[in-house]
C-alpha cells in the first residue's frame, strides 16, 4: 500500500514537473498516476474488508481477507493454524483463552486431504456464531473441533467447546462495538438546546449523564422490558415518573445511562417528545453538603426542580432515592416537596431504589407509592453477565493495564454467585472481576487471579491446595487431629478424607465439603473433633460456627436461625455469610424443633440456605457437623453388656428412625452417620497426658512444669471417669488435683522458676481423698 502511495506521489510530481518544463510526457505520467490511485481506493474500499458473497462457489468467496491474503493455493490445516496465529482473530484467542498458534499446530494435521473437512467444519461454526464469513476466530474453533479428543484438550484449559464458541461471539461483539463507535453520531448539534431554558443551578449541583462522556453502557436483554416501560411512562400523558426497583448491583443506574444514550441518539426510535432530552443525576449527599442549613436544602431542591421544569428538556434522576425520603446520616426527608411534583407536575422524574427500601417507604407513605410508576429491574442471566463483563473490560483493562482471560470471566461469575451476597448480578461478578486485576500475573488476569482475589478479600480457600505446607497438612491430617484427641479413628479419617477431596478439587462443588452426624454418649470427643478440625485446618477455633440447638426448640426459632445479620448477628446465616470457610457445629441436634430440621434440609443437600431476606447463603465451603446424644441410654446399655457399638451402628440408625426422633429424609442428607464409642482405660490415660500438656502450656508463663507419676495417672482416671459423662469430668478432676498441688508448692516456695513439680499418687490421693470429693467434681461437670 505504501509503495502504491509513493508511486502516485512520484508520478504526479514528475508529471507536473515535466509539463512545467515543457515535456508533453508529463501528461502521460500524471494520467498514469490514476492506476495506482485507483488500486489504493479499490484495496481500501473492497479488498481490505471483503464482503461475503451471497452465493459462493468456493471457500475463497467467504474467507476473510486477512486469512485469504496469507494462504497458499493448497493449504494444509497446519498451515491454516500457523496463519491464524499471525492475524487478529487468532491472537485474540491466544491472549483470552490461552489457545495460541503453537497449541493449534500441535493438534492439526499436515495433510492437504484434511483441509476440505476443515472448511466444512468452519462453515458450521460460522453458521452457529452468525458470521457471514470464515474469520480467523471461526477457524480457531473449527481447528479445535477437528480434533477427535477436543473436549479433553479443552478441559485442560478449564474450557469446553461452548466457551470457545462464546469466544468467537466475544470477538465479534468487540468488532461491532468498535464499528459502532466509529459511526458518526447525531446528537442534535450546536443549536440543540436553544429552544430550552438555562439551567445554571442544575449544572452546578447535578450531573448531566447525557453529556458526561461516559461510554459503553450495556443494554441487557433482561432490561429491555424495563427500558421500554420507562420510555413509555416518560412519554405518556399520566404521571411522567418512574421508580426503578431492584437489588443493588442489578444495573438500575446503568439502565438510566442507557436511556440517556438512547435519548441523545438522533437515530434511536424514542418518541419525538423525548428525543434530545437530557438526564441530570441528583446526589443526596452533595445536595446536603451544599445546603446544610434548615430550610436551605428544601429551597435548593425547589429551585432545581423549577429550573428543570422551565427548561423543558430535563429529566431528573434521583439515584438511591431512598436517601430523599428518610432522615439520617447522608439522607434527608423531602417527601413534602417531591410529592406534589410527583403527583401534579409534568416534570419527568426517574428514581432508583432497593426493593426493601421501597416497601418500607410505601408502608410509611402510601400516597408516595401511589404517585410512582413502579418498574422492576431483574438480575442479569449468566450470558448477559458475561457480555456486561466483556463491555466493562474495555475500560478496566485500559485503566489497570491488564488483560483478562475468558476463564477469569467465568470464574468471576461462578464465585460471585456463591460468595458475594450484597449485590445482584451483574454487579457481584463485576466487583470481583475488578478486584482480580490486583492479582494478575505478568499483566494477565486468569481464573486463578479471581480465586486469589476472593480468597484474600473473604478469607476462604477456593484454589486447590498448592503450597507444600498445606499438602503436608492434608496428607497428615489424622496425625494432627490426634495430637489433641484420642482414638475415634473412624470419625477422624472420614472427616479428613472429606477435606482432602475438597482441597484436591474432586468433590461435588454444589454441596458442603462434608456433612456428618456424630452420635454417641457425652464426653467421647464429638465436639472436640469439630474443634480440632477448626484449629488444625480452618485456622483456629474461632472458625467454628457453633449453634446449641437446644436454643432452637420452638417453631419461631426458625426465623432466628436465618435472621438478617443486621438484626441478629448470631444467626446461622449471618455467621456463615461472614465466614463461609468454617466448621459448622450443630450441637445436640435432636433438641431442635422439627421445622428447624426441615429448614436445614436444603443446607445439607445443596449447601444453600436462604436468609430471611431471601438471599442465598452458601455453605459449600463449610463442613457441617451435627452431634447428638440421642439413644445415649441404649448405647450405655450396650456398653454395659460389653457389646462393640461399631458393630451395632446400622441397627442403631434404624432404631433412631423408628423412634421418630429424626425423619429418614433428614438422616439421609448426611454423608456419614458416625458412632463415637466410649474411651477405654488406656485411652483415658492418653487423655490425661493431653490434659497435662495443656496445663504445662498454661504454666509456661510461670516457668514451671508438671509431671505426674503413672500410678497417680491411673488413680486420676479411676476418679475422673464416669460411664454416663465419658471423659468430660476428667479435665476438671485432673486440673483440680494438679493445679492445687502446683499452687501450694509455688506459694510455699517448694518450687521455683525453672523447676519441675512431680505429682505422686499420695498427693493425688490426699487431694481426692474421698470418693465424695471426686463425685462432687463429677456432679459439677454434669451440671455444666
Amino acid at each position, binding site marked *: 500500500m505504501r509503495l502504491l502511495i509513493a508511486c502516485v506521489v512520484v508520478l504526479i510530481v514528475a508529471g507536473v514537473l515535466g509539463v*512545467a518544463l515543457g515535456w508533453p510526457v508529463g*501528461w502521460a505520467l500524471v494520467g498514469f498516476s490514476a492506476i495506482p490511485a485507483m488500486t489504493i481506493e479499490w484495496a481500501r474500499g473492497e479488498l481490505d474488508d471483503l464482503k461475503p458473497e451471497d452465493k459462493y462457489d468456493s471457500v475463497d468467496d467467504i474467507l476473510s481477507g486477512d486469512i485469504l491474503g496469507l494462504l497458499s493455493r493448497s493449504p494444509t490445516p497446519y498451515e491454516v493454524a500457523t496463519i491464524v496465529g499471525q492475524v487478529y482473530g487468532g491472537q485474540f484467542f491466544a491472549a483470552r483463552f490461552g489457545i495460541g498458534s503453537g497449541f493449534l499446530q500441535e493438534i492439526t494435521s499436515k495433510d492437504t486431504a484434511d483441509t476440505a473437512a476443515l472448511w466444512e467444519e468452519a462453515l458450521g461454526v460460522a453458521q452457529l456464531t452468525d458470521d457471514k464469513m470464515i474469520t480467523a476466530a471461526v477457524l480457531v474453533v473449527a481447528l479445535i473441533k477437528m480434533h477427535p479428543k477436543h473436549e479433553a484438550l479443552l478441559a485442560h484449559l478449564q474450557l469446553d467447546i461452548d466457551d470457545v464458541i462464546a469466544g468467537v461471539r466475544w470477538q465479534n461483539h468487540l468488532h461491532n462495538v468498535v464499528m459502532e463507535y466509529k459511526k458518526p453520531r447525531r446528537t442534535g*448539534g450546536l*443549536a*440543540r438546546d436553544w429552544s430550552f431554558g438555562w439551567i445554571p443551578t442544575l449544572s452546578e449541583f447535578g450531573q448531566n449523564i447525557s453529556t458526561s462522556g461516559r461510554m459503553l453502557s450495556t443494554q441487557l436483554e433482561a432490561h429491555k422490558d424495563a427500558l421500554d416501560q420507562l420510555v413509555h411512562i416518560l412519554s405518556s400523558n399520566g404521571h411522567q415518573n418512574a421508580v426503578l426497583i431492584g437489588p443493588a448491583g442489578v444495573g438500575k443506574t446503568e439502565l438510566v445511562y442507557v436511556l440517556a444514550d438512547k435519548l441523545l441518539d438522533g437515530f434511536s426510535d424514542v418518541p419525538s417528545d423525548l428525543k434530545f432530552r437530557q438526564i441530570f443525576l441528583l446526589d443526596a449527599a452533595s445536595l446536603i453538603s451544599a445546603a446544610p442549613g434548615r430550610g436551605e436544602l428544601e429551597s435548593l431542591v425547589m429551585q432545581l426542580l423549577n429550573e428543570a421544569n422551565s427548561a423543558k428538556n430535563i429529566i431528573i434522576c434521583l439515584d438511591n432515592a431512598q436517601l430523599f425520603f428518610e432522615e439520617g446520616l447522608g439522607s434527608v426527608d423531602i417527601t413534602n416537596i417531591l410529592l406534589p411534583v410527583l403527583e401534579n407536575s409534568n416534570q419527568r422524574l426517574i428514581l432508583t431504589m432497593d426493593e426493601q427500601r421501597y416497601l418500607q417507604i410505601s408502608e410509611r407513605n402510601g400516597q408516595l407509592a401511589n404517585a410512582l410508576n413502579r418498574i422492576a429491574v431483574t438480575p442479569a442471566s449468566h450470558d448477559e453477565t458475561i457480555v456486561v463483563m466483556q463491555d466493562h473490560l474495555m475500560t478496566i483493562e485500559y485503566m489497570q493495564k491488564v488483560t483478562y482471560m475468558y476463564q477469569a470471566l467465568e470464574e468471576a461469575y461462578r464465585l460471585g454467585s456463591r460468595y458475594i451476597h450484597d449485590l445482584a448480578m451483574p454487579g457481584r461478578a463485576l466487583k470481583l472481576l475488578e478486584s482480580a486485576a490486583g492479582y494478575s500475573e505478568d499483566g494477565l488476569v486468569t481464573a486463578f487471579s479471581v480465586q486469589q482475589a476472593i480468597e484474600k478479600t473473604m478469607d476462604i480457600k477456593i484454589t486447590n491446595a498448592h503450597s507444600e505446607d498445606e499438602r503436608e497438612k492434608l496428607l497428615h491430617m489424622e496425625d494432627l487431629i490426634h495430637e489433641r484427641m484420642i482414638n475415634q479413628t473412624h470419625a477422624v479419617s472420614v472427616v479428613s478424607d472429606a477435606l482432602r477431596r475438597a482441597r484436591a478439587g474432586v468433590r461435588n462443588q454444589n454441596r458442603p465439603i462434608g456433612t456428618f452426624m456424630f452420635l454417641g454418649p457425652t464426653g467421647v470427643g464429638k465436639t472436640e473433633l469439630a474443634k480440632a478440625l477448626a484449629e488444625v485446618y480452618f485456622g483456629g477455633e474461632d472458625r467454628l460456627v457453633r449453634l446449641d440447638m437446644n436454643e432452637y426448640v420452638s417453631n419461631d426459632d426458625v426465623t432466628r436461625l436465618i435472621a438478617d445479620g443486621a438484626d441478629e448477628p448470631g444467626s446461622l446465616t449471618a455467621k456463615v455469610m461472614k465466614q463461609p470457610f468454617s466448621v459448622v457445629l450443630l450441637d445436640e441436634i435432636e433438641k431442635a424443633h422439627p421445622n428447624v430440621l426441615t429448614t436445614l434440609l436444603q443446607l445439607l443437600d445443596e449447601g444453600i440456605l436462604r436468609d430471611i431476606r431471601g438471599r442465598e447463603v452458601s455453605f459449600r465451603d463449610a463442613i457441617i457437623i451435627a452431634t447428638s446424644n440421642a439413644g445415649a441410654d441404649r448405647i450405655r446399655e450396650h456398653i454395659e453388656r460389653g457389646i462393640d457399638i461399631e458393630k451395632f451402628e446400622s441397627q442403631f440408625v434404624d432404631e433412631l428412625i423408628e423412634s421418630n426422633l429424626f425423619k429418614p429424609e433428614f438422616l439421609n442428607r448426611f454423608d456419614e452417620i458416625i458412632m463415637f464409642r466410649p474411651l477405654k482405660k488406656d485411652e483415658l490415660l492418653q487423655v490425661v497426658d493431653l490434659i497435662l500438656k495443656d496445663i504445662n502450656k498454661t504454666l509456661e508463663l510461670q516457668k514451671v512444669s508438671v509431671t505426674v507419676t503413672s500410678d497417680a495417672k491411673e488413680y486420676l482416671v479411676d476418679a475422673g471417669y464416669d460411664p454416663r459423662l465419658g471423659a468430660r469430668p476428667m479435665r476438671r478432676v485432673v486440673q483440680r488435683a494438679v493445679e492445687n498441688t502446683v499452687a501450694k508448692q509455688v506459694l510455699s516456695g517448694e518450687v521455683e522458676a525453672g523447676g519441675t513439680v512431680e505429682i505422686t499418687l499420695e498427693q493425688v490421693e490426699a487431694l481426692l481423698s474421698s470418693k465424695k470429693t471426686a463425685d462432687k467434681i463429677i456432679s459439677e461437670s454434669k451440671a455444666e
Partner: protein
Amino acid sequence: MFLVGILTWWYGDGWRERAGMVGGRIARSNDYFSVGLLLSTLFSPFRQISAGSVDGSFATQLRAIGDKLISRMIGAIVRSFMIIFGLVVILLQAIFGGIVLAVWLFVPIFPIMGLLMMVIGWVPSWL
C-alpha cells in the same frame, strides 16, 4: 481479471460508497448545525426566556405577551442566521461532493487522456 475487477468496483460499489460518503457528510453537517431542529422550533421563545404563563392584571398579561413576542422574535432571528449559515456550508459540501462524484467517473480514462495529451504534445506556454 485485474482490470475487470477494478472497473466493476469503480463504477459500481465504489461510486455508490463515494456517494454515500458525500451524503453522510451532508447529513453530519445538517445535524451539526441543527438545521432540522431549528426549523421545527423557529418561533419558539429563545432559551425559554419569558416563556411561562403569567397571572395578573390585564396590563401584566399584555406585558408578558409582549415579552414573549420579543423572545420569539429574537429566537427566530438567531435561528434563521444559524439555518442560513448551515445551509451555505451544506450547499458548498454538496457542490464539492458533486464534483468529486463526477470526476470519479473519469479517473479510469486519465491514462488514455494523458497519452493523448502527450501525443498531441501541447504544453501550457505560460509556464
